[in-house]
C-alpha cells in the first residue's frame, strides 16, 4: 500500500528494537473483552484508478454545472472561484499543517489568518474578528451564548426570518442550557417585525439576519435602535450571504454588537453544504468573551514582526471547563480561501461583483413581475427573493425539474403558511438566457 512505507525488513528490525516478537504483541495490553468478535472485514482496497472511476460515477449522479439551471441559494451560493485560489489552497504547506502551536514554523498560516481576521472585520464593520468557527449556524449559536455570558441574562429573541436551519441549530445548542427563546415574526414586507420586542423582558440578545432567509434586506439600524432601547441588550446580526456587504452597509456600521454568519460565498465551493466558514466578529469591548481562536501580532526575539495564537486563556486547552466555548480549532483552510478571495476581489471588485448580483436578481424580479408572477415581499433584496406561484405549483416545479431547472427552494416545509412560495437565487454565474428561460417556464 503506497501510503504505508514499512517493508518486511523494516518491521523485523523495528520489532527487534522494540522487543516484540510480532506486530500482534504490540496490542497485548488490550483485554480479550475489548476485542472484536470477528476480524474487521473491509473490501479489497481500490487502486488509484479504480477509485477515480468510482468517485466520478458517484459525482456524475449529481445535478451541477452546464446542463442544469439551479436557482438555489438559501445559505449556499454559487459564485465563481478564481483558479488561483483553488491552486494556492492546495499547496501542501498550507493544507497539511495544523494549528500553529509553534509560531516560529507556522508564520504562513498565522499571517494568512491575521489577514483573514482583518478583512473580515473590515467587511463586517467590526473591530475584531476571530479566526473562524465551523459554519454560519453554529456561529449564531455561539454568538447567542456569548451574549448570555456578557449580559448574564437568560432570554434571547430571534427573528423568524433567520435561516430555519440556523434556528434549529440554535435550539439544539441552547436546549440543555434552559435559556428562553422568543421568535420575532416577519411582516408583510418580508422583514422582521420588531414590535414584540417591546414586551420582551431583558433579552440578552436580539438576533436578525440580513439579507434574511427571504433575501430581504433588514432595517438593521431600526433593529439596533429597538435592541438598544435596553442598553444591555446586544444586537446579533447574522448573515448567509456576505457578498451583500459589497453593496449594502456593513452590519457594524448599522449598530450590530456581534456579527456572525456563513462565509461560503467567499471563494469556498458549495461541496454539498460543507465545509463552510463561520465568520464571527465583535467590538473590542467584548473581545475576551468571544469564542474561537485568535491570531495576534507581536515581535520575535530579534524584534521582527510576527504572529501568534493569542488570548488562549479563553480556550479549552487551558481553561477547560471554564472556556468561552468548546471549539478547539477553526476552519483554517476555508478562512485562508476566503482571505484569498476577498483580496482577489479587493474593494473595487467586491463592489462591482455585488452590484452584478443585485442587478441580475433585479432583472429576474422585473421579468417575473412583468410575466404576472407574484413577488409577495416588498423589501429590497440582494441576490435572493421569494416568488409565489398559483396553487398547485408542485406540478409546475416538478415539470421544471424534468427540464433540468431547479426553480428555487419550496418554502412550505419551513413555513407552512408559505405554500406555493419559492425562494429563488441568482448570482453572477447565472446568465441572462437562463433567467429568461425560467420566466418563460413558470409563466407558461
Amino acid at each position: 500500500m503506497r501510503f504505508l512505507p514499512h517493508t518486511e525488513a523494516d518491521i523485523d528490525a523495528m520489532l527487534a528494537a522494540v522487543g516484540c516478537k510480532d506486530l500482534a504483541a504490540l496490542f497485548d495490553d488490550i483485554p480479550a473483552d475489548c476485542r472484536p468478535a470477528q476480524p474487521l472485514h473491509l473490501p479489497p482496497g481500490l487502486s488509484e484508478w479504480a477509485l477515480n472511476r468510482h468517485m466520478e460515477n458517484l459525482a456524475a449522479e449529481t445535478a451541477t454545472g452546464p446542463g442544469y439551471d439551479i436557482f438555489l441559494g438559501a445559505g449556499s451560493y454559487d459564485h465563481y472561484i478564481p483558479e488561483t485560489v483553488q491552486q494556492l489552497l492546495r499547496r501542501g504547506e498550507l493544507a497539511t499543517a495544523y494549528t500553529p502551536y509553534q509560531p516560529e514554523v507556522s508564520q504562513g498560516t498565522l499571517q494568512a489568518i491575521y489577514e483573514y481576521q482583518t478583512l473580515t472585520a473590515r467587511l463586517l464593520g467590526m473591530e475584531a474578528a476571530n479566526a473562524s468557527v465551523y459554519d454560519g449556524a453554529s456561529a449564531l449559536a455561539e454568538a447567542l451564548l456569548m451574549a448570555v455570558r456578557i449580559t448574564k441574562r437568560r432570554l434571547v429573541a430571534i427573528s423568524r426570518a433567520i435561516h430555519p436551519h440556523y434556528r434549529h441549530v440554535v435550539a439544539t445548542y441552547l436546549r440543555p442550557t434552559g435559556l428562553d427563546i422568543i421568535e420575532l415574526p416577519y411582516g408583510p414586507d418580508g422583514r422582521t417585525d420588531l414590535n414584540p420586542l417591546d414586551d420582551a423582558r431583558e433579552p440578552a440578545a436580539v438576533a436578525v439576519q440580513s439579507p434574511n432567509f427571504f433575501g430581504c434586506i433588514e432595517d438593521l439600524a431600526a433593529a439596533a435602535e429597538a435592541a438598544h432601547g435596553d442598553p444591555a441588550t446586544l444586537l446579533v446580526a447574522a448573515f448567509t450571504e456576505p457578498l451583500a456587504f459589497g453593496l449594502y452597509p456593513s452590519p457594524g456600521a448599522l449598530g450590530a454588537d456581534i456579527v456572525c454568519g456563513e462565509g461560503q460565498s467567499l471563494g469556498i465551493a458549495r461541496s454539498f453544504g460543507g465545509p463552510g466558514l463561520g465568520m464571527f466578529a465583535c467590538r473590542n469591548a467584548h473581545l475576551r468573551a468571544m469564542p474561537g481562536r485568535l491570531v495576534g501580532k507581536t515581535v520575535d526575539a530579534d524584534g521582527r514582526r510576527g504572529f501568534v495564537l493569542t488570548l488562549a486563556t479563553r480556550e479549552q486547552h487551558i481553561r477547560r471547563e471554564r472556556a468561552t466555548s468548546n471549539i478547539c480549532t477553526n476552519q483554517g483552510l476555508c478562512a485562508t480561501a476566503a482571505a484569498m478571495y476577498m483580496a482577489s476581489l479587493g474593494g473595487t471588485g467586491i463592489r462591482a461583483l455585488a452590484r452584478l448580483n443585485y442587478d441580475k436578481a433585479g432583472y429576474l424580479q422585473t421579468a417575473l413581475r412583468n410575466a404576472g408572477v407574484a413577488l409577495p415581499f416588498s423589501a429590497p433584496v440582494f441576490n435572493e427573493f421569494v416568488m409565489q406561484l398559483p396553487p398547485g405549483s408542485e406540478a409546475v416545479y416538478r415539470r421544471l425539474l424534468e427540464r433540468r431547472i431547479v426553480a428555487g427552494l419550496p418554502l412550505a416545509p419551513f413555513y407552512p403558511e408559505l405554500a406555493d412560495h419559492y425562494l429563488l437565487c441568482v448570482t453572477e454565474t447565472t446568465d441572462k438566457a437562463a433567467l429568461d428561460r425560467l420566466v418563460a417556464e413558470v409563466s407558461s
Partner: protein
Amino acid sequence: SAEPLLWEMGARGRLAFSLPERDVPEHPLDPALAGEGPDFPDLSEPEIVRHYTRLSQWNMAVDTTMYPLGSCTMKYNPKTNDRQAALPGIAGAHPLLPPPLSQGLLRLMFELEQFLAAITGLPAVTLQPAAGAQGELTGMLIFHAYHGDQGRRRTKILIPDTAHGTNPASATLCGFTAVAVPSGPDGILEPEAVARRMDADTAGIMVTNPNTLGLFESHIREVADIVHAKGGLVYADGANMNAVMGQVDMGAMGVDVLHLNLHKTFSTPHGGGGPGAGPVCVSAALAPYLPVPRVVLTADGFTWSDDFPRTIGRLHAFYGNFGILVRAYSYILSLGADLTRISPLAVLNANYIRAGLRNHYHLPYDRPCMHECVFSDKHQQAHKVTALDIAKRLIDFGFHPPTIYFPLVVPGALMIEPTETETKETLDRFIAAMQAIAAEAVEDPERLRQAPLHAHRRRLDEVQAARKPCLTG
C-alpha cells in the same frame, strides 16, 4: 524576510478577479440603502499568487517534514483525496438539491456511515459534527437527551485527568459539571476511582482510549460496567483511534457514544487548523437521538429524513463538512482491507521512538505504548532546559516539535506521535536529533534556550501579544 500584509500592498484600481460579463442592465437601487463597500486593498493576480506562495513556505507541514504532534495524528494526506473532493459533481453540489438529483452523494454518506460503524463496532453514525469538539458536544447532547427521557436530570460527568481540554468544555456547554478522575500510578483509570465517584446524579464518563499518555485503558470494560450499573453512559473520545483500528470493538468495550476525527485517523488534511470532521458513532439504543437529517435508503433510493422524534436536533447548517467526508471515504476505499495494517504500524513506530529515546529522556510511564509516547523534560530540568526549549531546538533539526505540556498529568510533557506513514529512516533521524538535543542540554543549554536559530522567526513574544491584543491591521 518579511512578507508585507495584504493592505501594505496593492494600489486602488487593481483587480485580481475576473469580473463576469454583464448581460443585464443596472437595476434601480435606492441610494439611501447603499453602503460604501469594505476597505479592501486592490491587488493584481500576480501579487496574490506571490503573496501566498511565499507565505506558505514559512510553514512546516506534513508535506515538508515529520510532524509528530501528539494526539493530532499528523499522517500523510493522500493527494488523490483532494482530487476526489474537487470533482465538479462533488465540489459544485448544492446541499438542498432534491435527493433524486444527488443520489451519488447520499450513497457516499450512507456507505461512509456503514464503514465507520464497522470500524468502531457501534451501529449508528452521524456525519454531521464539523470537528471533534462538535462531536463531543453531540455526544453530550445525546447524554442530556437520554437522561431527560429517563426522567432524571443528571448534573455531573466523570472526566479523567488525562482528558483533552475539549472534554470538560463540551460537557460544560451542556450544563454538566466535570468531575475529575485521577488516573492511577500506571497512567490508566482504576475502576475503584470511578466507582467512588459514579452516582445517580452523574450522567456518565468521558474517556479517551488509548488515553493521552498513549496507554490503553485496560480496565475500560470494568469501568463501563460500573457506569452503566448506575444508569450512566460511556463516551469515548476517538481522537486516538489510529492506535486501535481493527484491534478493538468499541461496543464490546462498553462504549455508548464515540466521536472520530476524520482529519486524524482518516487522513484528511488539517488545513492549518481545519476544516476537520467529527462523526459520532452510537449504540443501537442511542441511535434515535442522532441529529437530523439522516440519510435513509428507501425503495426510491436514498433520501433525507427528519422523522426521528427523539433527535437532539441539528448541529450544522447542512450535513457537516461533506468535502472532508469525501476524503475520508476515498481513504477507506483506497486502503480497504489494508486499513487494519495502519494501527500495528502506527504503534510500532511509536514504540520504536520510545525505545530509541528512553535512555535519553524521562519516561513517566515506562511501559509499551500505543500510537504515541509521552516523555518529560525531568532529566533536562537540571540544566534549566525545558520541554519548550527541546521543542524549539527540534525545529533547527528540521522537525516539527511534538505536543508539549500535555497531558497535564505529566509536568513538562513531550508527547510524540509519529503515525504509520513515517519511514524507519525518518524515525532514525528523529531519534538521533532528539539524542543530540539531550546531549546539548548538558553541554550547551543556552543554545537550546535560544532555539530556534534557523527558523523563519525566532521565539515570539506571546506575552505582549496577549497583553495588548492586536488582532487586525
